[in-house]
């Protein structure tokens, strides 16, 4: 049992081996996805559990239009959004005036080049930690916009927020991340000076 078709066929027949094979194949990538949307590993595993239960429960709905990985990933993202919405009270505090101003800044920020050094080398694990350290709302919007390439309109619909709020959260997320990156750059610079 190797190809996606065989795995899907086995899963539709309720075969345990097929379920296991599908999990083994896609779990590492999906774990990476879930980690991005959650603040820690425990929450990520909860989301991934929900996601895979939905995957197995809805595998008969997969029509093969796109890749299986893409389909599973969408389910994982939806599971992450469900989990996030279950904790919605901690997320957004909308301020219409502030949002409007911030949204305008965010629009400009989308198209500006940052002054990040081109030779910047940050371990991926560190970048993951940076995303996880973001407040829930920032993290959700940043993931959906910057990594999944959703538009603010789509994000607003998915998260049940306004587009301006989405833009504001993105702006704040970027700023927070930039500060963390700058701190790393500064730290490495100081280290370099001290070693010289």
């Amino acid at each position, binding site marked *: 049992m190797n190809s996606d078709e065989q795995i899907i066929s086995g899963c539709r027949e309720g075969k345990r081996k097929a379920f296991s094979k599908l999990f083994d194949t896609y779990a590492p*990538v999906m774990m990476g996805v879930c980690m*991005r949307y959650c603040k820690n590993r425990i929450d990520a*595993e909860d989301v991934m559990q929900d996601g895979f239960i939905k995957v197995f429960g809805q595998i008969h709905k997969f029509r093969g239009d796109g890749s299986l990985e893409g389909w599973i990933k969408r389910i994982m993202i939806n599971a992450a959004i469900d989990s996030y919405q279950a*904790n919605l009270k901690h997320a957004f505090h909308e301020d219409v005036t502030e949002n409007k101003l911030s949204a305008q800044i965010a629009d400009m920020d989308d198209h500006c080049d*940052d002054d990040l050094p081109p030779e910047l080398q940050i371990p991926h694990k560190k970048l*993951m930690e940076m995303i996880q350290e973001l407040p829930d709302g920032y993290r959700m919007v940043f993931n959906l916009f910057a990594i999944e390439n959703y538009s603010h309109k789509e994000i607003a619909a998915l998260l049940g927020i306004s587009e301006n709020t989405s833009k504001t959260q993105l702006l704040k997320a970027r700023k927070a*991340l930039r500060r963390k990156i700058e701190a790393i750059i500064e730290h490495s610079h100081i280290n370099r000076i001290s070693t010289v």
Partner: protein
Amino acid sequence: MNNMNKIDDLFREAMTGYKMTPAPGLWLRIERHFFPPSKYRPSGLITSVLLLSIAGLMPWILIPANDQDEKKPVLPEGNFKRGYLIETITPVEIKPDGNGDYRISARSFTVRPTVYEEKEAIPEAGASEQFIASINDPADDPAIRPILIANRQHIADLAEPAIPNTAVKEGLLKDASIAFLESHPVGLIQYSRYIEEMKISAELRKTSLTPYHEKSYVRKGEFSAGLNFNPSIVFYDPNPYNKMLGGDATISYKMFSFSIMTGIGYSRMEDVSTYKVDYMTNDSVGYFIRVIGFIPDPRNPGEITYITRQEAIYDSVPHYTIEDKTNYYSYIDIPFSVGYTLLQTHRISLTIDAGIKFSLLVDRDEPDIDFRISDAELINVERQVPARLNTNWRFTAGVDFGYILSDRFSLHLEPVFEQYISPVYAKQPGYLPRKPYLTGVKAGIRYNF
């Protein structure tokens, strides 16, 4: 949206295809959702099979071996043959039926191996000198009619005390013949030989009987009642298995090699169900910066340096866990099957049977979840496995090994296979319909009327 931001690019490049190994327990949690584990371990299965095997062998262990099959009768000098002797088990009962006639009780016959001497038949000789051979009910066997007719007067004389008003008629006097036969040995010559001889001469041979063995029993055309114990393992393919214990009382009627059986039974089935348990715990959900002091900058009037401290914010956060729980379901079973006896010796029988079984759910034993997470508030318990249906039909098949203890009692051990024809669970989106099958052993005792 065309995203040109370098921060975004940095993270997108790093996070696309980023892989992490999930905790080993995660798959187990997901697997348990779809394939609830059984607490019936293989060691228990092996133990059960061994115990059942021992139980099945007990009759052969406890009951002294009857080696008559191996112990060949020693043939005396002369024209002796091996055959079987038929005798009635109990004396015939002749009772008045209240209308001036007489009724003869139903009879059963024992059959035992014997040796007999072949002699020429002498129809005109006295009845007491005749050996009457039959493979059917002697009273109905046309082969013995000539003897009965030839000896009708003698039969009538014998019958007279028992049936005073029976008239002697030409032809077969059935009741009188039976009365006569009850008081005389009735022999069964080996079947093939008998037929062969009848073809040649259509005449019976006179024989003398030499009963040889102790009792052995074979019966035909009869009702029987049985009590059975029936442990089984239920396989929820592709799920693991659960165990089921049951018993039934049956009644069956056997005619020649065919039999029909019905009855009523009780079974109690284990079912490991999965539950989603929602609960709340008081977790850290973020932090805030508390200003605990400030220092005015003397060099820059108006500038203040704040002294801050990061403090955690706690709030109740929802979680859930997947828990397993063993439920028990009790059923009343009504079986109906037909059987065909492949092998029947004086001690052992081998019968195949098949049929259907109807089950009615009469009791659900579904204990509460044992929630043991400390400092957590239980919010909701949601059953993941659909509810059990109240009725089921299943196909049954088995191979019954019978060991005949006496003319009344026999022990039976039957490996059985049953396949559910209808699902056991109610329909639920996202949950595959389950039509499990089961294998087990039916062990019991049967009483022949």
